[in-house]
């Protein structure tokens, strides 16, 4: 029994190791950048970093949940844009903000539901299905906007601009709530546990009495809804939107989640890890700007940092991969 206690502890620490290592990498970057430019750790800059990753952070929660369930959704970037476009259309057409937001959320939910339905019923790879639907959603945004900039002219910047006590931006509350939501859902609800089980071994989950199809539809719908919530932050921060504004977001969310230790195999990875991945991406971008690095080199450097960070955070696995 004593032995068991000890082992128990040991297991837990190992499990967290990957994230701990990633945090160390982040700390290292922070220290180096701060030495060169002390403004980096200014409270306003730190707030700025969080602001800059809030949309990505929210989308990454959707992506991480989907990956953990053994799925993937490459359309979340374009779902976000489509929701934003719907919101902008309604507001610019003179509609009220609450109605616009509600319809925006419904748009996201419906898009996600569609993804889930097709994936559950067709048994096709989610990757390819959502690549296709992503184009459909993008096309819809294009057609609705006619390719033009949608300007809110300050009618929708409450969330993006307001700060509590002049420091803490309201939009961060969205980020925090969504992270906590994803974390709670996956770890502390029956629904979440079943999602993880499906990701862990779908056939086993099926034989264990989980209605796979229904859960898949549900999780993709939630993913769509989260993307719509991201779009609220997105449009209100930028006070505008274009059909192309979300391109690449799905890949960045995927990158963040995977940097944070979520895998394609499903069942693995944590929300906390995914969030650390988001932070790393945000810090890299901000540091590049703060250090005014030659733009042409920024791309290469951030690529290199990602590779190194991923390898470092995986050191533990490499070491014990001995057999």
């Amino acid at each position, binding site marked *: 029994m004593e032995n068991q206690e000890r082992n128990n502890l040991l297991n837990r620490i190992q499990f967290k190791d990957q994230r701990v290592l990633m945090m160390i990498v982040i700390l290292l970057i922070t220290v180096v950048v701060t030495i060169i430019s002390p403004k980096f750790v200014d409270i306003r800059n730190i707030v*700025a970093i969080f602001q800059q990753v809030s949309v990505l952070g929210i989308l990454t929660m959707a992506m991480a949940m989907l990956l953990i369930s053994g799925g993937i959704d490459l359309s979340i970037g374009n779902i976000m844009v489509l929701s934003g476009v719907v919101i902008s259309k309604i507001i610019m057409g003179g509609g009220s903000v609450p109605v616009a937001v509600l319809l925006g959320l419904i748009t996201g939910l419906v898009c996600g539901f569609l993804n889930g339905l097709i994936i559950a019923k067709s048994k096709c790879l989610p990757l390819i299905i959502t690549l296709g639907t992503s184009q459909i959603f993008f096309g819809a945004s294009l057609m609705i906007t006619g390719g033009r900039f949608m300007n*809110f002219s300050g009618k929708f910047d409450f969330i993006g601009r307001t700060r509590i006590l002049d420091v803490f931006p309201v939009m961060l509350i969205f980020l925090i709530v969504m992270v906590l939501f994803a974390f709670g859902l996956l770890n502390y609800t029956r629904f979440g546990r079943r999602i993880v089980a499906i990701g862990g071994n779908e056939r086993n989950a099926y034989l264990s009495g989980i209605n796979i199809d229904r859960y898949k539809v549900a999780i993709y719908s939630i993913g769509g809804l989260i993307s719509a919530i991201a779009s609220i932050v997105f449009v209100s921060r930028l006070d505008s939107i274009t059909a192309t504004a979300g391109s690449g977001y799905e890949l960045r969310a995927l990158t963040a989640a995977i940097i944070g230790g979520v895998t394609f195999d499903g069942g693995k990875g944590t929300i906390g890890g995914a969030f650390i991945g988001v932070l790393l991406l945000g810090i890299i971008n901000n540091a590049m700007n*703060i250090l005014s690095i030659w733009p042409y080199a920024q791309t290469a450097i951030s690529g290199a940092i990602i590779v190194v960070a991923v390898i470092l955070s995986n050191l533990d696995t490499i070491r014990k991969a001995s057999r």
Partner: protein
Amino acid sequence: AGTKEKVKDGYTFGYIAYDMQDIWNMYGAQAFEYAADQVGVKTIVLDSGNSLERSVAAMEDLIQKQVDGISVFPISPDQVATLIKMANDAGIPITVENLPPPENAGDYISTVACLYGDIGYAAIKFISETMPGARIFYAAGAKGGGVYEQYQEGVDKALKEFTNVKIVGLEHGDWQTEMAMNVTQNFIQTGTKFDVIFANNDLMAKGSYNALVEAGLKHIPIISTGGSPDGIQMMKDGIEAANMTAPVSIQGVQTFKNLYQYVVQGKRDLPKFTPLPIVPATAAEIDKVITWEDPQKALDYIGGL
């Protein structure tokens, strides 16, 4: 070059680029930096990499650094409105390059911009005047980003005025050579007769040209836009028949001049908008062109700093 007056030690201007991988933006930024060098102003160029988000981040960073003035090369009118508000809140003077901000945007010094609509208009006008009756294939830029859409507005306007030409095909080459080559090739396959190609940039002009060569239609002239160094070269090589040049170097130096006059010299009566001259040029007139690479010639054109 320019005036030689003494500048207070340590003026620093920020420059938020739309995307430094875009050569138009890059030459504008270079001209801006060149002009700044002439009077000893330091510049911090930040690249938003065509991301609305990163541009906001860049603005946040510049405010952080408390620069003396900021120039923005916007991604969109609304993005620039956002940035202007942020600069206003931070009390930093801001000027805009390339795209005029929307009406209700906050306080900014001025805009120097090439109106894409004007280029589209100039191109149709040029074709109408030099090739009456021409049927045009239009190799357009990427849809959805707002730039091509402005070209289209000018084109539409011109088509109403100059009724002796018409567009017989429009496909999007997405600003890239390969895509333009593919869509031009596919258009040729439809068998539709056309007399001239209007390409929204030089990369696409090259792509369309490749497709023409393949199809043995090399004689069909291509009208491109911008007047980039590559464009000039392509005119020399006979790839482009004409180019609606818009010397971005002028845009860069003029933008700097406005910011400089406002911040350093305290001028307040600056024009709110200066359009960039669009100069239709054919191979024969190359020498007249103010090239992108030559900020000095541009400085001279605007009468120095």
